[in-house]
């Protein structure tokens, strides 16, 4: 337990009460504040149970408190961070280290209270994002370029980070709609699912506005899956998930059943963490599920908690998803009041509750161990594996981490049974899959198909390409470009792997002949450079060096053969020696663009 020594800077009254309000809100009943200052007073009960250790253990409140102070004040001053350091008993250098890791926190008084994060990433970039950014900047607003905001089907997108007011995302943004948001206009999300009315499973409720309420959810078959689950033993539920052949939909395609049975076999307490930090450029499926059908995620998590004997569930959602966050917040609160979360879920004699945590602008926190560090109040730096989260996860305890879409499939598995579910799709890729279509396509949105549909089928569902298709970015920035010769490849894990690409998180971004590929690929390189956590040398430096190489090709006319040798060298060390998947995949899209002749061609 270090002694906390802070600098001479003191917080303003507003900052002091923002910290106090936040801590009381986050950790009710644990502490009371002495009105005279930041000193903490404990009731006798707490001290008897080791109050000091408990304060130390409140480090996991660091990120929520930073959020609350930023949202109340507009930025994080030295005085405010000193107050946070003494209140949470976290060394101030580490408070600063953690806060400065995240994009959404700033350390200088802003020019305007509300920050505009304009997505200038892949899909928005080809839909006029840079022009919009320029217009807003010219208007004297507090404008930041942003990586993908997960609104690719309604590009361009802007995340309005307000002060003292609710954040909002502006979709199909224009200068006027952004200004309206600054004046308080809220966004009512419309499900970008043109497939309505068809035989959908994961997406069956997204057009039913009533389903975001508890009654509406129950009226549309909600909680039937949980009823089915609790009629079985927890072990049987895990067996069904295993038999279903369900694999992770976040990109890695790891068998969910393995993960669940590994966690269930470990001694408790155990955690179930849902990875809703959907930040892969071009990905927006989880957002759609959370905005329009939040209970299906809550129900599936409840089933997971029952099956693995995990009493604590966590949802880590990215900070740039304000509408999805509000949807989940209200659903969690309502589920609690209906007794469907808490000490005795639905009278089924088990305990399960969910805590929602917000990211603060860091793609890397979608890496599962970085996510765990972020929840615990540390920098979102991935951990070295082994040990794996199934044995040493959140707070060192056994933890299952699943993507939102993966999780929601569990409801379907309960309803159909493991074998019934496995009959959908192909032998190795079971179930249905959500694909995020964006870019130059007639009806961008989320599409649900059985595994095995071809790329051509999926694009046809979305009304076909707009203009003359030149390539498709599959799997996002961490994926790769493929040519139009791949249109008949069935979209399964095995077929895509055989053809040298990955489905990843389900990104299908269509690009036509108007795309400036040098610019587009440079943006992908910039993405990895800015999103690398910087912990390991191969990725911290490799992501910078590959961007420089692209710059030499583009602007200095450097010989492609020479640069290609260097790019290959960078790619190999990042793939072989990086700590996590970010480094492993950071060069895939760039090399595929060269292979396809999209950039670097000697014309």
């Amino acid at each position, binding site marked *: 337990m270090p002694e906390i020594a802070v600098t001479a800077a003191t917080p303003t009254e507003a900052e002091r009460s923002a910290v106090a309000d936040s801590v009381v809100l986050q950790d009710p009943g644990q502490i009371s504040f002495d009105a005279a200052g930041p000193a903490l007073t404990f009731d006798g009960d707490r001290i008897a149970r080791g109050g000091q250790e408990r304060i130390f253990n409140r480090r996991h409140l660091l990120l929520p408190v930073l959020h609350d102070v930023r949202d109340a004040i507009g930025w994080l001053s030295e005085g405010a961070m000193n107050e946070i350091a003494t209140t949470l008993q976290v060394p101030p250098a580490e408070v600063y280290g953690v806060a400065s890791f995240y994009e959404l926190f700033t350390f200088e008084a802003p020019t305007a209270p509300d920050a505009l994060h304009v997505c200038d990433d892949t899909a928005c970039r080809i839909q006029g994002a840079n022009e919009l950014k320029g217009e807003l900047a010219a208007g004297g607003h507090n404008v930041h370029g942003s990586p993908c905001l997960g609104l690719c089907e309604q590009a361009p997108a802007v995340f309005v980070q307000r002060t003292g007011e609710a954040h909002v995302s502006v979709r199909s943004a224009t200068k006027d709609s952004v200004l309206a948001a600054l004046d308080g206009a809220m966004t009512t999300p419309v499900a970008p699912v043109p497939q309505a009315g068809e035989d959908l499973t994961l997406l069956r409720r997204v057009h039913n506005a009533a389903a975001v309420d508890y009654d509406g959810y129950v009226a549309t078959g909600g909680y039937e899956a949980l009823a089915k689950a609790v009629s079985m033993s927890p072990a049987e539920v895990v067996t069904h998930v295993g038999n279903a052949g369900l694999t992770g939909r976040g990109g890695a395609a790891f068998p969910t059943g393995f993960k669940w049975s590994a966690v269930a076999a470990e001694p408790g307490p155990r955690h179930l963490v849902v990875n809703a930090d959907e930040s892969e450029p071009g990905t927006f499926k989880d957002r759609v599920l959370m905005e329009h059908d939040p209970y299906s995620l809550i129900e599936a998590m409840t089933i997971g908690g029952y099956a693995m004997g995990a009493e604590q569930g966590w949802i880590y959602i990215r900070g740039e998803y304000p509408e999805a966050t509000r949807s989940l917040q209200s659903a969690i609160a309502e589920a609690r009041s209906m007794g469907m979360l808490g000490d005795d879920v639905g009278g089924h004699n088990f305990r399960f509750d969910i805590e929602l945590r917000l990211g603060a602008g860091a793609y890397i926190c979608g890496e599962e161990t970085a996510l765990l560090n972020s929840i615990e109040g540390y920098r979102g730096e991935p951990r*070295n594996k082994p040990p794996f989260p199934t044995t040493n996860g959140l707070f060192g305890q056994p933890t299952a981490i699943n993507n939102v879409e993966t999780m929601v499939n569990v409801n379907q598995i309960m309803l159909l049974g493991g074998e019934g579910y496995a009959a959908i799709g192909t032998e190795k890729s079971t179930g249905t899959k959500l694909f995020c279509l964006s870019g130059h396509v007639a009806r961008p949105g989320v599409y649900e198909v059985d595994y095995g549909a071809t790329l051509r089928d999926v694009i046809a569902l979305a009304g076909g390409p707009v203009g003359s298709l030149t390539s498709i970015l599959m799997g996002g920035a961490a994926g790769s470009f493929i040519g139009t010769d791949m249109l008949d490849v069935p979209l399964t894990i095995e077929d895509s792997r055989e053809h040298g690409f990955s489905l990843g998180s389900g990104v299908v971004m269509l690009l036509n002949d108007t795309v400036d590929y040098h610019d587009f690929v440079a943006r992908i390189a910039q993405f990895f450079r800015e999103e690398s956590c910087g912990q390991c040398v191969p990725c911290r430096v490799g992501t910078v060096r590959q961007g420089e190489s692209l710059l030499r090709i583009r602007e200095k006319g450097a010989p492609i053969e020479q640069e290609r040798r260097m790019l290959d060298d960078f790619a190999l060390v990042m793939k072989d020696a990086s700590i996590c998947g970010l480094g492993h995949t950071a060069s895939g899209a760039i090399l595929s663009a060269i292979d396809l002749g999209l950039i670097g061609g000697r014309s």
Partner: protein
Amino acid sequence: MTFVDIPVEIRTKVSISVDGEAVDVFEGDTILDACTKAGKITPVVCYGPTVTPVNACRVCVVELEGSRTLVPSCSRPVEEGMVVKTDTERVGHSRKMVLEFLATSSDVTQSNDIMGWLGDYGADLDRYDPETTERMTDEVKIEDDLYIRAYDRCVLCYKCVEACGEDAQWTFAIAMSGRGFNNRISTEFDVALPDSACVYCGNCVAVCPTNALQFKTEFDLRKMGDWRPEDQTVTRTVCSYCGVGCNLDLHVQDNQIVKVDSPMDHSITSGNLCVKGRFGYQYVQNRPTK
């Protein structure tokens, strides 16, 4: 009379293969321990005998049968039957690239180890166009008379952070801040050291692999072109301040103490000292001026 039960530690023997040779080590040892026992010379930057490996530099990677990626030998515990290879093209490539990345990002010229490995692994620094290759160009921070921080030499190995924190001092005056290539070791809000929580134990200086942290005396002498390690003597003595008995190594040049450290393998210090032991040596040379 009181009997103290001294537990006898029973360590299980583990046998692994390193480049085809069977090596016996103990459970809890790392692949690096096994490599060293097999006589392999493994480059390490972020690893140190007295700090918990953060395995951030990745220069010690080896090939492990069954692993898709290379693994950091410094922090991977051995398991019975592991098959490790250190002399493959893949290992050589990653080590060479990590060294190239380090040397093109920071000034590593004051690290004899890194300079040597650059040659050993055939690093080619000339292929990086200086005009388009971004480096760390931080100005040196001179904030007191004890030690300086030259972050253009920093390789972000986290060793100083570990030494300031849980591995030695428990002061937590510095931490990693920022993200990606903009990562920097920083005090709270990047304030100057004297305003920070720093207690000037200098244990960060002791573990720095690139001399990014160095005694002000050394920095001044280097600036004057008068830093001559070959002319220095090292005298081991016992610190005279308190009764703990820390060993000091006094580095002396021209009859002046220019640097103080403590042996990393010393049973009391593990290389760590306090502000008095490390920086409070001026009284020794309080000689009458001529």
